[in-house]
């Protein structure tokens, strides 16, 4: 009997092991070693990438890492030459478990491995403590998604981010809530640097817009049960529940709001603006709003192409920050090209001068390493997809440029009808238009700096 049972157990274990082999996500296809024809020296550039690959946010971490793999493969297929040598990029992917302590451990690991630059981390809570280690080691760090304003305000010259920060996002969300006719709000945050930071900025903006905060409740980034705090919020009769946190908590929170019979609406930031949120929240998410820094991929020149490339390669939809991760890798590679060096000390000054058209939009940094003129877009959860509503905040440059373009086209059209002279004057008109736009951009810039 005993022997028989152990056979059964073994086969169970074996079955587990087998299915484990069978269903494992396909590892990234190994990059084919480039065939080096002659004596060109080859240098290996190691880029660190950090995101939570295990834990409740592993699905977002995987998304980030996939984008980094995609970017690295593309760079390698371009056969770049920097400083007269062929360059081969290598990705050193680490897992910080979205845990600040683990974040500094892997940061030290990357510093010790002498990487040439770091893309990451995903969370503000891990990015901020790690940024000190990178700064001390003189390593450039470009975070795709750490939106807590503190990250770039520590005086670290190595810290950059390719996403608008939460000061902008919180402000826009507060204004949007006021516009929706919200009078009272309950704020829930997950006590992470991101969630708390966003909630604080939202609170400021909401209060400035005449909304009363009737409850401050807290949860954590591993929780699944929110009934207790939601019951309390219900007793405070809020019009809106604002959630500062990630989709894994936001989804169940929205669902439990409905189960408890709360009439309040739900609003959240980039952490809940994902397909996963709708999957987890079910019908309760329908008609609610969230925001994402940047403008929708579909509206950008390189967006749709990136989207289809990503899906074709990995077989699943982009979750959230993949375009920003891709851009972060490209920012580093671009700076290396311009500096003609892969040495951190040499190409670091070039990052600040970045001026490129990324898949997530235009990338330029201010003196803190923050993205210039970051716009925030509002989305509505509608029938299982994120429907774009509007873009708020940021500089109006993009819109103005589009207007000028339209004007130019109209002018050009008119010009062909009238004749060459008209074309000339038309072109001049466009020029004046462009200058006016520039002027507007400067004013916005000045206004932002004043703030």
């Amino acid at each position, binding site marked *: 009997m005993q022997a028989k049972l152990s056979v059964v*157990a073994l086969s169970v274990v074996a079955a587990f092991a087998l299915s484990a082999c069978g*269903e*494992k996500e396909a590892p990234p296809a190994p990059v084919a070693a480039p065939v080096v024809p002659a004596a060109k020296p080859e240098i290996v550039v190691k880029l660190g990438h950090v995101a939570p690959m295990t834990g409740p946010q592993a699905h977002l971490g995987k998304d980030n890492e996939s984008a980094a793999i995609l970017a690295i493969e593309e760079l390698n297929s371009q056969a770049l030459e920097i400083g007269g040598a062929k360059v081969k990029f290598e990705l050193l992917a680490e897992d910080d478990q979205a845990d600040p302590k683990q974040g500094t451990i892997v940061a030290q690991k990357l510093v010790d491995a002498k990487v040439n630059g770091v893309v990451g981390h995903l969370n503000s809570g891990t990015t901020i403590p790690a940024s000190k280690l990178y700064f001390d080691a003189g390593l450039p760090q470009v975070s795709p998604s750490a939106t807590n304003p503190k990250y770039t305000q520590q005086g670290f010259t190595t810290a950059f981010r390719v996403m608008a920060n939460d000061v902008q996002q919180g402000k826009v969300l507060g204004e949007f809530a006021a516009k929706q006719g919200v009078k009272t709000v309950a704020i829930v945050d997950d006590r992470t640097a991101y969630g708390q930071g966003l909630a604080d900025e939202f609170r400021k903006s909401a209060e400035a817009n005449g909304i009363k905060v009737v409850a401050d409740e807290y949860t954590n980034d591993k929780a*699944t049960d929110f009934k207790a705090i939601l*019951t309390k919020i219900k007793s405070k009769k809020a019009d809106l529940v604002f959630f500062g946190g990630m989709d894994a908590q936001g989804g169940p929170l929205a669902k439990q709001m409905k*189960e408890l019979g709360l009439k309040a609406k739900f609003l959240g930031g980039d952490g809940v603006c994902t397909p996963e949120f709708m*999957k987890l929240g079910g019908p309760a998410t329908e008609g609610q709003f969230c925001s994402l820094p940047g403008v929708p991929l579909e509206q950008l020149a390189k967006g749709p192409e990136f989207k289809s490339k990503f899906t074709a390669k990995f077989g699943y939809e982009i979750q959230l920050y993949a375009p920003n991760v891709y851009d972060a890798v490209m920012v580093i590679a671009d700076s290396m090209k311009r500096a003609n060096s892969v040495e951190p000390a040499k190409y670091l000054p070039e990052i600040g001068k970045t001026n490129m058209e990324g898949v997530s939009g235009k990338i330029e940094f201010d003196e803190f390493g923050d993205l210039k003129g970051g716009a925030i877009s509002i989305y509505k959860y509608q029938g299982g997809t994120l429907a774009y509503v509007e873009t708020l905040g940021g500089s109006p440059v993009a819109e103005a440029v589009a207007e000028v373009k339209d004007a130019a086209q109209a002018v050009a059209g008119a010009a062909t009808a009238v004749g060459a002279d008209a074309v000339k004057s038309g072109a001049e008109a466009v020029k004046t238009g462009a200058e006016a736009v520039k002027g507007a951009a400067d004013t916005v810039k000045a206004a932002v700096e004043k703030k």
Partner: protein
Amino acid sequence: MDIFLQQIINGLVQGSIYALVALGYTMVYGIMGLINFAHGEVVMIGTLVSITVTSTLAAAGVPLGLAGLGGLIAAMLVCMALGWSLERIAYRPLRGSPRLTPLITAIGMSIVLQNLAMIIWGRNYLTFPPLLPKVNFEFAGAHFTLVQVAIVLLSAAMMGGLVFLVYRTKLGMAMRATAQNPAVASLLGVNTNRVIAAAFVVGSALAAVAGVMVGSYYEIAHYQMGFMLGLKAFTAAVLGGIGNLAGAMAGGVLLGIIEALGAGYIGDFTGGFLGSHYQDIFAFVVLIIVLMFKPSGLFGEKTGDRA
């Protein structure tokens, strides 16, 4: 008042789940004096197996209720096999070694199971198909759902079944005998190895039921969901007096209610000085206070009649 009632309902449902998981800890502890830290992971595996089976069956055209039942049975079978294998692989070879050693293998098994689940089911959250129709009841201003009612009733039934097993059957008598004194029990013809294995199997079956409950309650599942649940259930077992069946049940329900009330009222009691982020701390503070005055838990560790 309706808010208070709502918080009690919230706590009662959460507490029933804690209680069911806590029974697994307490049974194993009662018999072997071992804390099976991988128990939370067994719950997680139960949830994930039932999701896979239920959705596969539902996709094949089986009605959802039947598919859910199939999922529950599959989860119980897999978890029973898993519990048995755990004991066989991680604990039996270490029988008689210092107490710390099996504790370490328990934590090791917990990590192994988590990663195994991550490899099999992936890193993403899985959604649990809604097994019961979404009926919302309202009573004196408090809302509750059919799922919540089912959870409380099913937990009570499972606990009743366990009490019957332990106190009214031959296997239960053997369990109690082994708990009292394994050496004497084996001298009197009790196959202690089989009794211990049975304790693991029964505990794991309860864990599977708890797993399906958690899954259908929150409608989400993730490979890391077992860890915190296991920790809370362990706390509940200690609160009630570990090794004591009635203690585990009462401890579970009590912990659930304490947590809900803590989150709901701690801010008001302290004038906003402490907020709902002290929810977990509140529960642990209660635990510490209980242990200070009653070191063996509320119901005491019935050493003479454990199991």
